[in-house]
């Protein structure tokens, strides 16, 4: 199992105000964390901070704390069913921090009691003077309690800032193929981009072009997820799919092509024939740092919306609406935006109707008779699409992603983008979630404890995989 840590930008600011003191001395505090378990990675989602009360901690160049502070924080974590994190600062440090013997002793001394009281390992975190975080998970081994280094700490808000453990996730070397890309934003930004594990959910017209862009950007680890097969009517839009691929899994066609397109020295491109609403697919998505939602159905969008807020994994999403008319085309518009803490969620953006999720679970959205019974102007009856439109949506989505990470000119968020094709007009959406939005409030950073069951049996996905297996067997 690999480990990482994540927190919201708002919490990062709150904790830095305490830990990075004006007098330059070290400081410390406790916080609670909740688990987000993927297939291969456990992420500690840091939640509420438990600041010290008078006399509970002492600052003397370094920092120390009274047992009663630890016990109070531990009781808080245990009562919440959460884990406990011990955080301290290295004000003079830059980047990922190592641990001094005092740091190790302070954390090791409290690891056993934390595990017994909460059932979860103690997480240690350090913030450096430049705001970089480092973290480790204290696990019980044969010879006592020892720290397992986390691979990264991501701070999720309008900007996505990640600190990387260079020992576990070294910066990938950018060779001559990436010279022009690196010259746009520098080696540091390229290293941060390239080390993100990016998931592309949906390998259709938009997803295939998003994935191509990510591969050429030098992103090392890309997970492609789609249960569907290439069909004849996909060939006008799905990048790399040709007539000879009809009947094959979209993700395998795409993966094969990306291995050639990728500019990463050692690309790690995975193909999953699952749906994100299937349990295993959902947990594979939790191994990612960023997800692209290239789906057009309500159930997977609802699942991705939960992941964005409960599991602190930003979701880049978009969509196309074509207004076809009896004679010609009236117009079209498409959108791109990111869902995550500090941004508007997919439900508030009306990118899906929660009232239709159950209909999809019941298989009705794959029933042609049911679809025919919907009003003519219903979104689910609209299946027009055009390659250049998908190309533009994909580019908007990738640009939203780059802006979130690179923050050109310090700007990480320009709101959602809406392009009106007929008028050539580009609009922005700066609205926040509704005040009563559950995603931005009660689900945020709850991880596995969000208490929302979004996965289930996906009959269409199972049927698609069976059809491919049957086709392969009979050939």
């Amino acid at each position, binding site marked *: 199992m690999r480990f990482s840590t994540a927190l919201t930008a708002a919490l990062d600011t709150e904790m830095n105000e305490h830990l990075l003191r004006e007098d330059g001395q070290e400081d410390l505090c406790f916080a609670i964390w909740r688990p987000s378990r993927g297939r291969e990675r456990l992420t500690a989602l840091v939640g509420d901070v438990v600041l010290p009360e008078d006399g509970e901690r002492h600052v003397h160049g370094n920092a120390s704390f009274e047992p009663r502070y630890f016990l109070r924080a531990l009781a808080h974590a245990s009562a919440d069913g959460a884990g406990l994190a011990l955080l301290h600062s290295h004000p003079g440090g830059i980047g990922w921090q190592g641990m001094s013997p005092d740091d190790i002793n302070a954390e090791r001394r409290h690891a056993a009691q934390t595990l017994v009281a909460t059932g979860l390992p103690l997480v240690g975190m350090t913030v450096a003077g430049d705001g970089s975080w480092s973290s480790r998970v204290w696990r019980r081994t044969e010879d006592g309690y020892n720290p397992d280094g986390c691979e990264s700490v991501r701070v999720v808000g309008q900007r996505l800032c990640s600190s990387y453990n260079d020992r576990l996730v070294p910066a990938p070397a950018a060779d001559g193929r990436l010279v022009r890309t690196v010259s746009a934003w520098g080696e540091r930004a390229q290293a941060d981009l390239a080390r993100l594990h990016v998931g592309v959910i949906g390998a259709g017209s938009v997803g295939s072009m998003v994935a191509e862009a990510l591969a050429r950007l030098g992103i090392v680890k890309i997970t492609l997820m789609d249960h569907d097969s290439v069909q004849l009517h996909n060939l006008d839009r799905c990048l790399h799919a040709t007539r000879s691929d009809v009947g094959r899994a979209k993700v395998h066609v795409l993966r094969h092509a990306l291995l050639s397109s990728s500019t990463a020295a050692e690309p790690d491109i995975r193909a999953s024939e699952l749906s994100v609403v299937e349990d295993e697919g959902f947990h594979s998505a939790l191994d990612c740092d960023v997800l692209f939602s290239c789906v057009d159905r309500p159930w997977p969008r*609802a699942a991705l919306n*939960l992941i964005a807020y409960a599991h602190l994994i930003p979701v880049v999403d978009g969509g196309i609406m074509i207004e076809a008319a009896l004679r010609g085309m009236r117009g079209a518009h498409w959108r791109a935006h990111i869902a995550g803490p500090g941004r508007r969620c997919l*439900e*508030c953006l009306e990118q899906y*109707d*929660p*009232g*239709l*999720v*159950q*209909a999809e*679970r*019941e298989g*009705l959205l794959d029933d042609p008779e*049911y679809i025919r*019974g919907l009003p003519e102007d219903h979104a689910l009856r609209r299946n027009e699409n055009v390659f250049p439109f998908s190309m533009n949506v994909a580019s908007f989505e990738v640009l939203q992603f780059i802006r979130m990470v690179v923050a050109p000119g310090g700007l990480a968020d320009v709101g959602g983008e809406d392009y009106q094709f007929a008028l050539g007009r580009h609009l922005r959406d700066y609205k926040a979630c*509704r005040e*009563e*939005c*559950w995603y931005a409030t009660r689900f945020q950073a709850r991880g596995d404890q969000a*208490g*929302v*069951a*979004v996965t*289930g049996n996906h009959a269409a996905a199972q049927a698609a995989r069976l059809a491919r297996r049957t086709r392969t067997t009979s050939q």
Partner: protein
Amino acid sequence: MGGPEFARQLRDLGYQVTEQGDGNVRFPWEIPVGSRVGELITLGFTVPPDFPVTPPGGPCVTPALQHPHGAVHPAPFGSGWVYWSRPFPGWASTDRTVRTYMAHVRHLFGQI
């Protein structure tokens, strides 16, 4: 969440609820509106596991009454039942309670 929460809220509203497992709940109900006002029927719901985040897809009804707008399907409650697929529009902007959902159900029966 899910079926147990839906059943709990129904009981709080005074309904005599039977939970069948797998998120299926049913209860006797007197039609309050429309052409069949006053008739006693049984309503059933397949409650999504993430209720109240998402609502049921519509009511299951016995006797097997037809709805004039169609979209009537076989129901998971057995013979003699039908399922009216009637997604709740604008669920996200409501308080996401069973009381609000039942107002939607009353509206559907007002159409027959």
